[in-house]
């Protein structure tokens, strides 16, 4: 079971008990759960109870509605690819299948190499990736747009997200997950790269 699914399922079990009229406190419920999850489960149940039901739908601006539609289109594309029966490959696999290095593909996209590498490591918020990049990746990697959308949502290579520690006690902190715009700025783009993607940055 997915870890997140466990917490959702546990919270639903707790709500069922409460709705059935059982006066069961959080601590009494949590103590029956696996020890390793108790502290986090308690904090989450408290968060869940504090914020209550979904009572207000957002009234979206045109820009916000476009962002939401972008997210739905991304997932829809990935599902469409899955339904086609073609195996889902992540970006690294698609790139390697074309025998391209990260540097070469980045040059073809006029994108900072650090940003492309970060995208492959799954450390860029997928919802913030511009449509234009999805389309260009599809073109460069000779893949469909839906294959790229599926690749963006696919798990990244396991070695790329490993947290490594060295013998001298240096422990590398987990690389933060940031938006495309932040990752772009952090990758110190050249003037040419900046100009190429300026229209897609806030």
């Amino acid at each position, binding site marked *: 079971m997915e870890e997140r699914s466990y917490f959702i399922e546990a919270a639903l079990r707790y709500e069922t008990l409460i709705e059935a009229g059982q006066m069961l406190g959080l601590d009494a419920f949590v103590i029956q759960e696996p020890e390793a999850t108790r502290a986090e489960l308690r904090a989450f149940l408290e968060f869940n109870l504090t914020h209550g039901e979904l009572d*207000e739908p957002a009234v979206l601006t045109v820009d916000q509605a476009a962002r939401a539609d972008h*997210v739905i289109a991304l997932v829809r594309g990935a599902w469409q690819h899955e339904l086609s029966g073609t195996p889902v490959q992540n970006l690294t696999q698609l790139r390697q299948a074309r025998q391209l290095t990260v540097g070469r593909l980045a040059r073809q996209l006029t994108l900072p190499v650090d940003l492309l590498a970060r995208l492959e490591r799954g450390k860029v918020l997928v919802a913030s990736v511009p449509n234009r990049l999805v389309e260009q990746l599809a073109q460069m990697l000779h893949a469909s747009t839906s294959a790229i959308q599926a690749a963006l949502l696919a798990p990244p290579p396991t070695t790329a997200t*490993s947290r490594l520690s060295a013998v001298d006690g240096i422990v590398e902190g987990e690389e933060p997950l940031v938006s495309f715009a932040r990752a772009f700025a952090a990758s110190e783009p050249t003037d040419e790269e900046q100009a190429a993607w300026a229209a897609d940055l806030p």
Partner: protein
Amino acid sequence: MKLQHSWYDVVVACQERVQRIRASLTSGGTLTLELQADREAVILAIRNWVLGRAKHFPELDEDGVSEVLLKTIQQLDRDLRSPGFGSMESMFGSYVKTTVHRILFEILGKNKEQRTLSASERLDAQVGKGGLARHEVIEDVTPERLADEYREEQLHARLHAAIAQLPPHDREVINLRLQGVPSIEIARRMNLSPVNITRIYNRVVERLRQILTVEEH
């Protein structure tokens, strides 16, 4: 603009569709075009409610809010296929609310962790049990400290001399690592896997330790 439907209406409309989808997917069936349309309708129905809840948290920017929607949709799709998630058929409202809350809880927790990490590097960050700011616990220059620094400089000089004796490939790894370049980045530059970089690094550190130990005796 006031939306006409209440959350209760949305839940009732979605629950029936969820039951139809799960009846097929959890019994080995496929997602027919009709069921795909049901899934699409559920997503569109909950979209603004999910975003409404995410907007309660000002610490989330627009990209963060989009991420909440993306993860909620992905989780919904996973759970529609999961035989063990029958509760979403009878408690769809609670299911959506709890799912959004779980995703928000994870994202906010991660953001807080990152903020704490960066705050702990600031000079005005409180350190130690006494609650002193970091700049207050930085030692002044004393003869003892100067002597320590001298010993440290000597050690650095010996270390760099030892590094110079290493093969070029190993030397490149250790020099980049000493400059603070992460292993993942070194791996990318040298076209190797991060695991291999760690192996090389561990081997080189051991070799340097041997060289320095022999020099001491």
